[in-house]
């Protein structure tokens, strides 16, 4: 059973396009996250949602819009893709609280040409 899943695994697209990445967790967690891992493997949080409400937005450009239709899903929509958006995007989930383990998805490798 996959705990945190993401689709697609790979995404290759042209500059200027709009794309979405989907994330689903079946762990019953109430908090979900999006992280970006750049080419140097630096990992940084982008967004955090708790019970479908946005609680963290880390100065991410407006072109990135997360959407949480329910507690089990947190999708990431990206408008007007730029070359610098090329990265691996990880979704994660946890129960609320600092000591709760975050469970990560397998990542979506985005390449913008």
């Amino acid at each position, binding site marked *: 059973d996959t705990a945190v899943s993401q689709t697609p695994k790979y995404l290759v697209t042209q500059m200027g396009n709009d794309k979405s990445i989907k994330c689903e967790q079946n762990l019953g967690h109430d908090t979900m996250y999006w992280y970006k891992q750049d080419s*140097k493997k630096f*990992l940084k949080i982008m967004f955090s949602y708790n019970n479908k409400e946005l609680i963290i937005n880390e100065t991410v450009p407006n072109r990135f819009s997360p959407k949480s239709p329910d507690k089990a899903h947190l999708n990431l929509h990206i408008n007007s893709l730029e070359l610098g958006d090329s990265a691996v995007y990880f979704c994660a989930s946890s129960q609320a609280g*600092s000591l709760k*383990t975050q469970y990560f998805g397998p990542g979506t490798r985005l390449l913008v040409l």
Partner: protein
Amino acid sequence: AQRVTQPEKLLSVFKGAPVELKCNYSYSGSPELFWYVQYSRQRLQLLLRHISRESIKGFTADLNKGETSFHLKKPFAQEEDSAMYYCALFTDKLIFGTGTRLQVFP
């Protein structure tokens, strides 16, 4: 400023050698620290957390508040330990260090 520093980008050792991956943090509050590991082409997963004071896969990490460090140690490295290791500090969010790639040669 809240920050996690992992000074080594790459650490290469031979199998059976001791390993220490360094992590220093900057945080004015009471720190909650974690080590996450990412094996090749796999998802990031929790290795250990300081509050548990546990040993996972032979790894331990001790929080030293005086030196603001949370170094990850293993007395005898194995080839399967080769991976990317991230130290992370939880404030209102997880702040990751830049990661250290551990290569264990046979």
